[in-house]
């Protein structure tokens, strides 16, 4: 087969803005889910955790959406985005996140702020709205993986593991966000300790999913270059420093051994940064796999970038 190191066509369109969106949608959806679960199953001790989780949902997803809008080439046309839910994951996703934001907004407004009363007292209504919100929080977290996965030519994304990876990361970063804020908002040590253990377990699981994801990517010919790009190419710094060190290893060890005060906050912050880097690495690793024809592999071959032309000198006029 092809003896030349063919490098696929690297997708350059979706980078940090979209990564920020994917990340924030993950954090918001993940924190909301954790909040709702805490509310459903935790009892009064977990009330602070639930509130923070639920509260984080709306602003994170909303800000994320702003990043998404900022990436649009024609934001003035953005209102048309609903038109094709039948086939487009962007249309579907928009509907999902809007519905999620509606439920999160109701939940927040009637429970936490500005009308703290109605749902605080009516537990079953709160739980009902919480479950309805969670029904949309889950796809908010997962659809981004499906959205990328629908892209057939980018084999790195075109896998069922991606939604799993995004979901696990969303829950983990959601917990970290809750812990980060919770520490100053009166969450008790017991809950924090339990959250820390849960998060550490999730981190291990996330690591496992990530390894399988990349191993699969490397094993598949079409996505091998993507895997190389992430592990040893242009994306490697973001991956090794951001995802592995900041996002997984450091938080894991700090959670296991450090555990308290500023160190724990640092662990959470690093973990969140890692979540952002994970989205970025997946996006920036995306490459159109070489096209096969007549026994050849065809691709644009990456070469050293020639310098951008300088101004030089204009002939006098």
């Amino acid at each position: 087969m092809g003896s030349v190191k063919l490098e696929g066509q690297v997708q350059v369109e979706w980078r940090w803005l979209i990564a920020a969106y994917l990340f924030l949608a993950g954090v918001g959806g993940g924190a909301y889910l954790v909040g709702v679960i805490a509310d459903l199953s935790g009892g009064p001790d977990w009330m602070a955790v639930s509130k923070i989780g639920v509260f984080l949902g709306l602003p994170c997803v909303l800000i994320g959406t702003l990043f998404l809008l900022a990436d649009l080439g024609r934001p003035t046309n953005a209102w048309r985005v609903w038109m094709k839910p039948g086939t487009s994951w962007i249309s579907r996703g928009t509907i999902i996140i809007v519905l999620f934001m509606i439920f999160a907004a109701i939940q927040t407004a009637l429970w936490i702020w500005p009308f703290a009363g109605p749902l605080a007292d009516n537990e079953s209504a709160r739980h009902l709205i919480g479950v309805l919100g969670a029904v949309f929080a889950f796809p908010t977290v997962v659809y981004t993986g499906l959205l990328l996965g629908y892209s057939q030519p980018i084999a790195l994304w075109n896998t069922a593991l991606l939604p799993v990876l995004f979901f696990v990361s969303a829950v983990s970063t959601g917990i970290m966000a809750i812990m980060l804020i919770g520490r100053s908002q009166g969450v008790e040590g017991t809950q924090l300790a339990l959250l820390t253990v849960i998060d550490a377990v999730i981190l291990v699981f996330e690591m496992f999913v990530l390894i399988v994801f990349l191993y699969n990517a490397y094993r598949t010919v079409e996505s091998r270059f993507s895997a190389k790009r992430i592990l040893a190419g242009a994306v490697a710094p973001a991956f090794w420093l951001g995802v592995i060190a900041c996002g997984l290893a450091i938080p894991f060890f700090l959670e296991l051994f450090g555990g308290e005060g500023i160190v724990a906050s640092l662990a959470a912050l690093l973990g969140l940064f890692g979540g952002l880097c994970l989205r970025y690495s997946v996006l920036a690793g995306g490459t159109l796999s070489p096209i096969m024809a007549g026994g050849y592999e065809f691709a644009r071959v990456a070469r050293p970038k020639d310098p951008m032309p300088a101004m030089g000198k204009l002939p006098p006029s």
Partner: protein
Amino acid sequence: MAATITSKVQEDVWIPTCCGQCYCMCGIRVHRQNGVVTEIEGNPEAPTGRGKICVKGLAGTHLLYDPYRVNYPLKRTNPQKGLGVDPKFVRITWEEALDTIVKKLEACKEKDSRGAYFQATTTAASEIRYAVTAFNKAFGTPNYWVSGGGLHCGNGAHFMNGIMHVSWSIIPDFAHCNLPLNFGCSKGHGAGHTAVQNAIQAADARARGARTITFDPMQSPQASKAHEWVPIRVGTDGALALGFVNVFLNELGVWDDEYLKYKTNAPYLIRPSDGRYMRDKATNKPQVWDLVDKCPRVHNDPLVTRVQYEDQAHDVALLGTYEVDGVKCRPAFELLKEHVKKYSPEYVEEVTWIPAATIRRLGKEIAECAEIGATVTIQTEQGPKKIPKRPIAAHFFRGSQGHVNSGWTCLSIDMINHILGAADTYGAAMGLGAEVTDGYKPTGKPYQIPYPDEDGLLVAKAWVYDHVPYPLRVPKQPTRLDLHDMFPTSIYNAFTITSPHWFEILDQFKINYRPDVMINFGSNSVMTMGNAEIVTENFLKKFNFIFSFQLYVSEFEEAVADIVLPDACYLERYTPAVSFPSTFSHPQGEDDWGWTIRQPAIEPMYERRDFNVVLMEICKRLGILPKYFKALNDMTVMRYGGPFSPENKLCEDGSVEHTWPDVVDRLLKDRFGPEHGLEYVRKKGVFTWPKRKEDVYWKWFNPSRVPVYFEYFIDAGEQISKLCEQYDPQKKYIDLNWSVFKALADWYPCPTHSKEKPEYDMNAFYWRPVTQTNSMTQQNPYLDEITSEDPNIYGIQMHQKTAEEKGIKDGDYVWLENTDGKRVKGWVSLSEGMEPHHVAIAAIGGHWGEYMPIAKGKGTFFNDLVMMDAAHTDPLTLGQDICVRVKIYKA
């Protein structure tokens, strides 16, 4: 949606004209909307491509509108010259520029008009050979140089093709050729003359099922389309070709008997004493041996000549020993047959690195594919005629001929065709151009039918230079600054003028004037000749005053120009006949003849002026305008196929001042009748008329023969070496191996093949990519962008394993250093498509000029590695060796 634009349009015209991005001169149509050139496409009326056009031709709009174009005359205010010197150009008026130039030229004329010197780019091929040469003659200087003569031009190829095919270049008759053999060229695949039309034909040939074989150290565009790519060591194509000839003659016993007997000098009887023809005492003509009457006969005795294939003649001897006037002599063919025995496949394998078995296999295949004996019937003016069909063609260009064995390599490769009778006949190797045409019927012009000389050999009727390639000029005491007069077998040379001892050479050879004023027409010779520092210091800085007609401030202007004149580009000017001199843009094959003109698609912008017009103005101010018109009249004969009729002749007595379009008009009317002047031709951009089949497949309609035994080289060598020794007995300045002047083809090693300094273990060579011409197109941002799309053009190509052994990775920056310590930098592009001991560099990259920022820093400047001394010069043609042994290391 287009409504808004169309509603604004007041002007929307298509102007048929001619491309000028390279020397192919394809017909184009230019779209002008509201005074802005917006599109260029191929001209379907022009036989050069019938509407098809290459990437460079399509990208011309950016040349027209490039903000870095020179738009006003510039004057150098920094008296210092050299590489890296800021010229401190300031804008001046045309009046001041012309005034200064005329004063300098007048002073030069006063001292010695021969001190004027012009150099020009190959992309203005037609103008150089007409207007510019006429200016030289009118001014009174014999000194010129086509920039790129060192690197870009084909001293070997053009000269040898001129001898063998009366043409500038050879190309397979793709329409019927079943086995094109490509030796280091990309003809039919983006490069070479009439590139677009050849590309169409080569594609047709592939689609038809023609098998192609390419010999090249690199998997060139041509090699990648070939059925078989045979990697070859650089500079050894000649040895391979002679190896094939040996296989034909001595292993297979295959040759085209009829062709060799009646269309070559193979049967000419040779004296054993000095290798000369055995001449008839009465007529002094060479003789052949009549096997029927068992007697010698002069070569053109009707009994032993066959002009047309169906003519009858006595059989003549190719082999054997015959006694004439008491001398035992043998036919030239037998000498050739014995001579090539030393090119056994085993020896050739040692030289070329191609396995002997492959050489034998391919030799057999080629011989079989030639279908010797096969004929076809074509329709001629005299009715149907039988001619031989020989569907194989060996051809070559820059790659195989850019070596110290240039001349003989070209002849050796072409010898494959001539041994098999595959020359200028159906399916065979064809001369490219309009060297054989009896003209447009009503006027009989341009008329250029070649004819035999007294020795029966082919003489061109029209040619690009003042002297035809054969018969040779007699070497004379040199008067030119490059001693050209002494070297009748050469077109140019670089080793004299770029020598550090140039003026000492001139003293030694009793040339008592010195270079004074240089006129540059669009050339960037700092980059196109060889090592930039050598060219600048040894050659260009020897001129007192240099003015330059130029599109950009190139590295040449930056380094040495005193005045830069803003030239009109090809879209802004007239050219009377881009297709002529007869070699550059005539479609090969059976399509019509076409006389393409160039006309402005837009008036020259800013203060740009057409150099043809400015030349006339300079002549006028110098008071030599009548002389100039006389020179144009004279040039018309050789260049444009016959003299002017009296009514169209340019005025030589000074009573009429012709304008440049007027010259164009007269030429057209003269060639095609009064109703077909400029006004008529400009509507289609080209005047076409039918081509006779006997002009295409002319070999068996013309009474001339071609040499396979180059008897006259022996004389030339003796004369040249004698002249040289007369002036330079110690061989201090001209030390060339005169023994290559001999009658039979041989292969000589290049300096690259030396075993000294084994650490220089890679052979670097240069190739021409389809996206670039010479050095100027690199500033075109369209072409730059597209070139960047290609993995190889801007890179240094190298084999992966070789790189691995040297610890070099794909994309690494490396230095290439030649044995003189000169080095160039670039990044490597690794692949399996390279012979492992070679590195390949494309185009003239690596610009450093500040005024061409798009081009700056792209690619690698190969020419800096090129050494321009006698050791790297072919003694036969003075062609320049452009393969270089280098070592490679990481930058």
